[in-house]
Structure formats: C-alpha cells, structure tokens
C-alpha cells in the first residue's frame, strides 16, 4: 500500500464541507477509532505514523463535536490535507478487511466504501 504524504501547504485550504448521515458518522467514528487502536498496537512510532494518528484524532474531534444537524447528520469541514489523509485511511481500512465480516460490520464497510467514493469525487 502506498504511504500517505501530507499535501503541500498551498493545498491546505478548506474543501467543501461534507454532510454526513448519522450512519456515516458512526461508521467513520468506528473506522477512525479502529485505526488508532491498530496503529498504536502494531506500528512503530515513526513521524509518518504519528502524523496519521494526529489526523485521525483531528477528524474524530470534528465528528464528535456537540450539536449535530437534525436527524443526527453532521457537517464535516475538512482541509485538503485532512481530506487526503482520510482517503488514505479509508483505503487502508478497506485493504485490511481480507475476508467478509459478520453483520453489522459488513454494513459499516459498505457505508465507508460509499464515503470513500464521495471523497474521490472532484
């Protein structure tokens, strides 16, 4: 798997905020928490790992901010750097799923795959 590199400073401007459903918020929270657990448990503390962990932490912070929109939806404003990092994390998360998982996790994967596709859109 390719490694994630922070995007150049000039590309750090905020992108169009994503509006996530409650289901997408929960799936993304699970993925980011899972990534943090795995990275702490299995990866040596390199500068690159630490940058990815800080990014996951930052996006989690935005997801967990109080006062969601009606219906549990949430606006997720991301910098270009965060968007690139999130794409990388979601791809890494998908790559780790080597076999079908029992429900409801399978559903979370489908939700995340759709979210990943949205992040790829121009």
């Amino acid at each position, binding site marked *: 798997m390719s490694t994630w590199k922070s995007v150049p400073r000039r590309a750090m401007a905020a992108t169009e905020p994503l509006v996530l459903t409650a289901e997408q918020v929960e799936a993304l929270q699970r993925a980011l*928490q899972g990534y*943090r*657990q795995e990275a*702490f*448990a299995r990866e*040596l*503390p*390199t500068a690159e*790992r*630490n940058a990815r*962990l*800080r990014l996951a*932490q*930052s996006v*989690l*912070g*935005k*997801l*967990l*901010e*109080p006062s969601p929109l009606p219906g549990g939806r949430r606006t997720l404003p991301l910098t270009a750097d965060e968007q690139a990092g999130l794409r990388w994390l979601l791809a890494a998360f998908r790559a780790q799923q080597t076999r079908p998982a029992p429900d409801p996790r399978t559903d979370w994967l489908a939700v995340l795959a759709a979210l990943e596709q949205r992040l790829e859109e121009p």
Partner: protein
Amino acid sequence: MALLRTLFGHRRARSASASPTPAAPGGARSHVQRHYLTGVPYLLPKDPLEDQRLNYQHHALYRTLSNHYLAPLSPEGLRTILDVGTGTGIWAVELQALFPDARIVGVDVSLQSLPQPLPPPCVFVRANVLEGLPFPDGQFSYTHQRLLVAAIPARSWPEVVRELVRVTAPDGWIELLEISDVIQPAGPATRRLFDWIASISRSLGFEMEVVRHLGELLTQAGCVDVVQQDIPVPLGRWAGTAGQLLLTDVLHGLSTLKDSYCARTDTPPEVFDEMLREAAQEWEQQQARYLFHAAYGRRPGR
C-alpha cells in the same frame, strides 16, 4: 495522616506543607542528594534532576504517543484547559502553543518546578487534587491529568476522577493517561523487578491495578463517550529513536524509586541496579513494549 506516616515514617518531616526536603525516605545511601515533598503522598523526588527527567519524559511521550493529548478535541470548543499535576508546566506551555486562544491553567501541590519567569499566558495554581480543586463546577472545556499514579493512593482514585469531572464543563472532555507495571513480553528479570516494586508500592497504598480501570472510573463518575485505550509502547533501542527515548526515561524513572525503595527494604542499591540491568537486556532481546493506559470521556451535555 496515617498514610503520610507510613510513607515518610523513617524521615524527619521538616514541614507540613508541600515543600522539598533533602534525602530519600529512609535515609538512602546515595551519592546524589534528592529532595522530596513532605505533607503529600508523592513517591518521586521533587528537585531539578527530577524536573529534567519530567521534561525529557514529556518529549519521549510526544514521540511515542503521537501527540500531547489523545482525546478527540476540537479547537473551536476549547475555551479553558486544566492540567492537573502540571509539574514543570511543560505540557501546559506546549498546549498553549497548540491552542493559542484557550486559557490554560496548571495545578500542582508544589509550583517550585515551574520555569521562571512563568510563561504567559498560562496560569498556575497551587492545589492538591486529593483535597479538591479550587474551581467552580463546569469551569473547563478540557481537563487533563497524566502520570500521577505515584501521587494518588489507590483508594483516592474514584474521588479524584469525580473531582476532575466536576470542574469540567458539560460536553467537555476529561483525559487520563498512566503508565502501567506491565511490560510485554516480560522475562524473569522483568517480572522480578516489577514484582519487587509493586510489593513496596502496595504496602505504601499505591496500587498499579487501578490504572487498568481508568475508563471504568470515568464511566462511574458519569462520563459518556468513554474510550479506554491500552497502548503498548515500544521500549528499547530495537524500536528506533522513539524506543530509545522511552527506554532512557523508564531507566531514569525507575532509578528515581531506587533510593527510597532500597532504603525501606534494606536492599543494597547494587542489587537494584543489577535487576534493572538484567531487565533492560530482556527488553532489547524480546523487543518489549511498555503498556500505557489512557482513557478519555465527556461530561454529559446539559
């Protein structure tokens, strides 16, 4: 007071307040004169050498844990931050750089370790969390406490965590981070060293078991969105720079216990040095990891 007598029973207390006094509990045989606080149950020295170690530890933790905090903070919601057991104040100062718009307050039983002049705009207050914090309810949007297992007797933990939650604002985060007594994998020398340390700590009222339940303590204190994370941090040169940093910190940290623990048990310091040396060899050979326990949770919203 019974606990204090137990803790410092072999030492002449010079003051009832948290001020430093020379010599290790028990009158240790050491060529380096260490200073300890009196009037508070704190097992580690309080002197420039220890301050240096604490600052070093701060940088080692940043390299190994990726950040100065683990809670999923959002800068927009951070107005006030509390650091309990601030020590040299280095965490508070660096958080101020990360969150320049936040008001950061550090508390400690002794402010003697703070740099002079005090770094503005951080505010430091002398207070003992074991006796309650001098702040109104719901004052802080983020409350942080780490590495106080040698300062908080086991039976006081639930009350301390409730106090941290009390001063935190609704929807604010409370974070706890502690080092454990678990090294994985642990060979016989490592087990021998840690069993010895644990038995003395236990006799003084300090129980490492409690740090395995930080998440439960937050939940019992009413927090929601609680996450407990056990972090096995690589320990030793085998793990590169970060592993080396943590190794140096752990070796110095354990050595700070040496004087007082050896004196209490009539153990020659050379025996301790040998135990530590053998354990450190195992850490390299077995690519060991030192387990940290972290937990964070949120005070329920209004």
